[in-house]
């Protein structure tokens, strides 16, 4: 008799089994894309149950949902709910379901798991897939003047160069007010607020000086990158496009994209390349966190500190130039590895930069924290309730400031993070602006230590994987922890050396939906610092429209008015305007 050897469970197996046990017959198929990624296919009507069970019942968090037009492959649309399992059996479980192209409808998961709301709104914009029961069916990504029946990411809809004739001349986006004050409010359509960097339209619903609710419209500069990547670029050039998603954390996107393709194709990236990627990811965090710390100084009215943080930040930029040849858009990732090695003299120079940065930032942080304004301007401001956080899956310092230690680097260690010694996710439980700032300070110091560990530990060897085979239609996830939180990329390559579908989720995409809860209960003077503490992909809101719910009047504040009020807290810009 031969005793059967117990088969070691694959990562995610316990979750799949739990779904099978709880909802018999629901798992039509389960396939592993990588060691830590499993995709289960479920019937469309079971979708909300399964996602809710994995989210709340098994400790899952939802970074994103990906819609995909798979009609050329098997005749249906498909939805992929990406779940990051962070309690037991850590890994990724992707719940896939097929949507009938005749009805184009599926049951919305948002009423059960609020974190799906933006993804489901976007799936309608891009594919025309309707989530039945979705509480908020407004457009998310496409502009107001986009034709109703044109869904850009459908495979048969349009060329990426097509620019449809605008259908309307007026903005018709409805801002939602969820407060309880009785008077209804007529909200005027303001002009678009294009700042020097990124535009967005905020609407604060206030009672006097207190913010009751807030709503906002973003995506004014939606660039259609996913469409360009699918149509024009070959899959190996997309790393360079991913570098340009963000001017601050582009490298994190580039790595995430490269790793999604590598996971799908089963490419083993050489160890040295993994170390180099991690070093560059942390170099990026250095300059990003210093920028945010500088901005916190600025919003606290401590502009000298702001200048000094930016002076020190320049060292982090110099370090990037030294290692990559560019201040930003490092452009060093290729599918299968990196393009530049770190040479010995660069290593020595990096160690020197790291120790200088450590000394200077320690001194500056000391000054910031001992500034009288810091405590009063940040303590208890912009509270992100952990319960709200659990519902919406925010990421990065934003959620870690609310006592929840979500960090892809430690939850799902990848690249060099697998080899770190004595590090863990940093959390603070004040839930306020101060906690988020302190998380960033500690992470900055951790980044320096990580860079030192990796420079010492990086093995010699090649930096590019060679001799792998391209297999069409395979898909997988790639993930990195950008300075603002996790970047999650889902990529599927086609049979033409191009991306069949590429979905990139930037960190702040997960954080915007919770902003309105962070606003509530604060005063207008705090609005700028709350947005700033999220470190959104833009921290200056050019203008804010303020609506008084009791008087049904509205007025538009400029960015400089709001900022100066935030810093001085006297001379309300609303004074003298009949408020």
């Amino acid at each position, binding site marked *: 008799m031969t005793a059967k050897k117990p088969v070691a469970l694959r990562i995610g197996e316990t979750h799949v089994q739990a779904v099978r046990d709880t909802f018999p017959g629901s798992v039509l198929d389960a396939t592993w894309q990588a060691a830590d990624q499993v995709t289960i296919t479920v019937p469309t009507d079971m979708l909300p149950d399964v996602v809710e069970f994995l989210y709340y019942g098994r400790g899952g968090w939802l970074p994103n949902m990906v819609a995909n037009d798979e009609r050329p492959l098997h005749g249906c649309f498909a939805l992929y709910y990406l779940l990051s399992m962070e309690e037991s059996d850590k890994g990724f479980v992707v719940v896939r379901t097929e949507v009938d192209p005749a009805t184009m409808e599926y049951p919305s998961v948002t009423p059960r798991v609020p974190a799906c709301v933006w993804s489901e709104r976007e799936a309608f914009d891009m594919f025309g897939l309707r989530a039945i029961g979705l509480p908020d069916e407004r457009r998310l990504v496409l502009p107001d003047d986009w034709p109703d029946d044109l869904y850009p990411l459908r495979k048969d809809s349009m060329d990426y160069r097509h620019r449809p004739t605008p259908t309307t001349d007026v903005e018709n986006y409805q801002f939602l007010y969820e407060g309880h004050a009785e008077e209804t409010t007529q909200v005027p359509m303001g002009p678009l607020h294009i700042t020097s960097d990124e535009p967005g339209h905020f609407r604060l619903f206030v009672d006097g000086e207190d913010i009751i609710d807030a709503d906002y419209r973003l995506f004014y500069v939606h660039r259609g990158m996913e469409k360009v990547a699918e149509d024009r670029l070959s899959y190996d050039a997309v790393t*360079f496009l991913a570098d340009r998603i963000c001017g601050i954390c582009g490298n994190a996107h580039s790595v995430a994209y490269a790793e999604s393709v590598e996971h799908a194709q089963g490419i083993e990236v050489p160890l040295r390349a993994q170390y180099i990627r991690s070093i560059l990811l942390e170099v990026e965090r250095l300059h990003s966190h210093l920028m945010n710390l500088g901005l916190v100084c600025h919003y606290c009215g401590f502009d*000298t*500190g702001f200048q000094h943080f930016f*002076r020190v930040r320049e060292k982090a930029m110099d370090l990037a*130039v*030294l290692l990559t040849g*560019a201040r930003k*858009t490092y*452009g060093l990732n290729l599918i299968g590895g990196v393009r530049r090695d770190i040479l010995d003299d660069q290593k020595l120079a990096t160690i020197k930069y790291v120790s200088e940065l450590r000394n200077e930032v320690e001194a500056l942080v000391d000054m910031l924290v001992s500034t009288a304004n810091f405590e009063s301007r940040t303590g208890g401001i912009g509270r992100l309730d952990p319960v709200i956080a659990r519902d919406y899956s925010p990421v990065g310092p934003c959620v870690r400031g609310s006592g929840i230690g979500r960090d892809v680097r430690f939850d799902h260690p990848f690249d060099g993070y697998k080899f770190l010694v004595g590090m863990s996710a940093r959390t603070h439980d004040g839930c306020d602006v101060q906690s988020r700032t302190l998380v960033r300070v500690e992470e900055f110091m951790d980044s320096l230590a990580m860079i030192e560990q990796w420079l010492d530990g990086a093995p010699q060897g090649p930096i590019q994987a060679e001799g792998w085979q391209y297999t069409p239609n395979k898909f997988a996830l790639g993930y990195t922890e950008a300075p603002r939180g996790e970047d999650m990329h889902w990529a599927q390559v086609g049979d033409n050396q191009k991306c069949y579908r590429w979905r990139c989720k930037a960190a702040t995409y997960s954080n915007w939906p919770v902003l309105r809860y962070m606003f509530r209960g604060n005063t207008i003077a705090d609005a700028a610092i709350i947005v700033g503490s999220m470190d959104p992909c833009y921290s200056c809101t050019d203008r804010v429209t303020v609506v008084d719910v009791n008087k049904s009047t509205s007025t538009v504040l400029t960015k400089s008015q709001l900022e100066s009020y935030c810093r001085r807290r006297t001379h309300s810009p609303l004074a003298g305007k009949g408020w």
Partner: protein
Amino acid sequence: MFKLFKEIRETGDATVEYPFAPYEFPDGFRGKPEHNEKLCIACEACAIACPANAITMELSEDQSLITWNINYGRCIFCGRCQEVCPMFAIELTKEFELTVLNKADLGESCAYEVARCSCCGKPYAVKKEVDYVRNLLSKMGGPAATDIKKLDRCLDCRRLEDAEAFQLQARHRGEA
């Protein structure tokens, strides 16, 4: 507060004199790509690798010239062209001041002669590339250089020639 004043005093000037003094970058900085038209054999490797389509190749209407173009307005300074160039004919320099008053000045181009097949007269490859290969093969000598005469023929003519030779060989074998 005193700490802050001390810090300010110790820091001194944090800014540099640029643009009144040159701005230095470390080696390996990725700036303007410089094309060396003498080394270039117009093999098109850079045009294929360029993710931004900044480098393009264009055949003239009568197919006698092929033009290598670069548009610095599209360039993303990734350096892929430098990586793939077999002739080291393109290199990223430290130059970063690319502003021009006229949009057309953002481009550079260079035309190369196209070789015609000695058999059928069709244009088939860049002359410089063919010359380079001929030179390389003749220097290598030995079995590699046995087909050196065929270099001035287009792919179709060479295929035809090979097929005919093979047919002849097969016929001989059949007779034997």
